């Protein structure tokens, strides 16, 4: 993609509106602390890339944002609504926040088109015809409209992940979360998924992406977050992050990941 873009695009289009805010968030699995005093705020239109070694809590953090995991201490405010165990709020936030998983998690017993129309029809109460129209629109956007009447098992990994992205988009979310979207893919399929994500970023979608794809991060990120050992170690603009990181741990991590 266009190498110039991030520098120009990063500063301007971000508004002042904070859409995701994590304040002193803590989480434990039994005695194991998965998140320690995490503070993050994301503005509308901002593209945040989260990286860090495995087990550092990055997936846990973004899974807390649509409450796939419940945090035990602190505050998470998404789109102005605080996430508590209030079901109505959780439902409201989930329909605004799309999520793409590492293992696609398409519903194997449904055709692609039904995977896409399910949530709009059930959650948004959309008529079938409208839902299908939207589904086809997004399938075209991820460039696989011809696969609409196949089952997920008949698609390649890259195609499945693109369907999964389209499925989230069908709910017309205002925020998209990506949890290592390319980690389960064969190398030759990674690009087709990243291309879709870059396109999405160019359209101004608020995104939070957990990934190891540093090329992608350099292209689209407005903000880089580095996590290690359940904590946020560094938050920085990508140009600073990649050339002159503040923390030694970040430096070490980047060395390990970029030397190949």
């Amino acid at each position, binding site marked *: 993609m266009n190498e110039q873009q991030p520098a120009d695009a990063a500063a301007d289009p971000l508004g*002042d509106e*904070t859409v995701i*805010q994590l*304040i*002193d968030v803590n989480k*434990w*699995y*039994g005695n194991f602390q*998965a998140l320690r*005093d995490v*503070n993050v*705020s994301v503005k509308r239109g901002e593209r945040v890339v989260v990286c860090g070694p495995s087990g550092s809590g990055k997936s*846990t953090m973004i*899974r807390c944002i649509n*409450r*796939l*995991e*419940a945090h*035990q*201490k*602190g*505050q998470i*405010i998404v789109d*102005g*609504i*605080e996430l*508590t*165990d*209030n*079901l*109505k*709020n*959780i*439902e*409201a936030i989930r329909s605004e926040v799309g999520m793409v998983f590492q293992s696609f998690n398409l519903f194997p017993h449904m055709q692609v088109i039904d995977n896409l129309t399910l949530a709009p029809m059930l959650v948004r109460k959309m008529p079938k015809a409208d839902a299908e129209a939207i589904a086809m629109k997004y399938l075209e956007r991820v460039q696989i409209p011809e696969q609409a009447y196949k089952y997920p098992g008949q698609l390649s990994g890259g195609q499945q992940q693109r369907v999964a992205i389209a499925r989230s988009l069908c709910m017309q979310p205002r925020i998209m979360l990506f949890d290592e979207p390319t980690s389960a893919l064969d190398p030759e399929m990674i690009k087709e998924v990243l291309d879709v994500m870059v396109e999405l970023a160019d359209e101004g979608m608020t995104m939070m992406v957990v990934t190891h794809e540093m090329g992608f991060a350099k292209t689209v990120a407005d903000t880089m977050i580095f996590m290690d050992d359940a904590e946020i170690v560094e938050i920085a603009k990508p140009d600073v992050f990649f050339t002159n990181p503040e923390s030694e741990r970040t430096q070490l991590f980047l060395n390990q990941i970029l030397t190949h």
Partner: protein
Amino acid sequence: MISAAVPLSCAGGGDFSLIHFFLLSDNMASSEDSATEKLTAPDRVTPKGDTSIFNSMAFRGIAYQVLLAAFVILGGLYLYINVNANLERQGIATGWSFFNENAGFDIGESPIEYDSEDSYGFALWVGVLNTLRVAFVGIILATILGVFMGIARTSRNWLLSKVANVYVEICRNVPVVLHVLFWATVVRFLPHPKQAITPFDGAFLMNRGIVFPIPNEHPAYIWVGVAFVLGVIGAIFLGRWAQRWREMTGQYIPTFLWGCVIVIGLPLAAWLVQGAPLTWNVPALRGFNFQGGMALSPEYAALVVGVTVYTAAFIAEIVRAGIQSVPHGQIEAARALGLRPRFIMHYVTMPQALRVIVPPTASQYLSLTKNSSLGVLIGYPDLVNIGNTTLNQTGQAVEAIAIMMIVYLSISLAISTFMNLYNRLVAIKER
């Protein structure tokens, strides 16, 4: 109705789900003040959104449970009141006092002395023993037959596997009630004692049951029994010791062979040392019936044969599936390492097959025990039969049925505890 996000909170570990509920509720309040000072971003928004307690997961969770508990308790209370009112109206006594009253009915066969002067409680105890008598023998026979048929089905001998297959398909696709009924009728149509069928000398098949010779009682047999128990214990120790020996020296000792020698040899030696006493108590026809030997009533025989033949078909299927569940690659890998066939069987195939076989076999044992209640159908005095008689005589249906259920629950619990223990022994720890 369970709230939408309920499964979420157990997403991570599952073990903290409950604690988590309570943790959450007080965190909400306490985190507010501590958060403000540490906050890096000053533009903190005041959260909007729903704050109604009725939409809180914790509240809903508790509400659903309270509702269900209330439903169960009130429902139970309502039924209890109705039962009491109905019993009073029909003039039926309640409570367990009938336990000590005279039963007044005879029981066809009993492992312990019983006559109609004895109490209902004692009669029911006889029923329990009779049930256990069927279940115990049935489980042993069904295991032997089932394991044999199961192995036969995996045999490389085409004829054998087909015969076993036909047996399994026929027996498990016909109801156990029909099995039992069929054998009961067969026994009923056997000839009279005078024309009894003699499969081998001293044994007789007739419509009064089966009699066969047993050795006469002799004090030496007690020692033989002791020797057998010692043999079993010895064999277990031998196995342990052989394993340690092999680990230390690398030498293999055929434990199974030596185990068999000990288990069979010790009692045999004890018997020989005592002068090898053996006289048979051979049944003989006196008047209209046989005297002496061991006699099994026709009902007992029919019930045991019926439930055994039926359950063995299921066990055979379980054994076959267990053996075939071991991936062929496992055996190939063992062969590639140069292991001899008996090592492969002992160290590779059996441990993996048993893990698959044991749990479903346990539930077959349970179902055999429960199916022994079909005694009521053919006049075998098992627990359900005697309970049924008690019910009809006293009219105390609730108590009589409750006793049956409690006894069966206890037996089930005992068998499944025992099988769980065994399962823990054979289960493989992969991680």
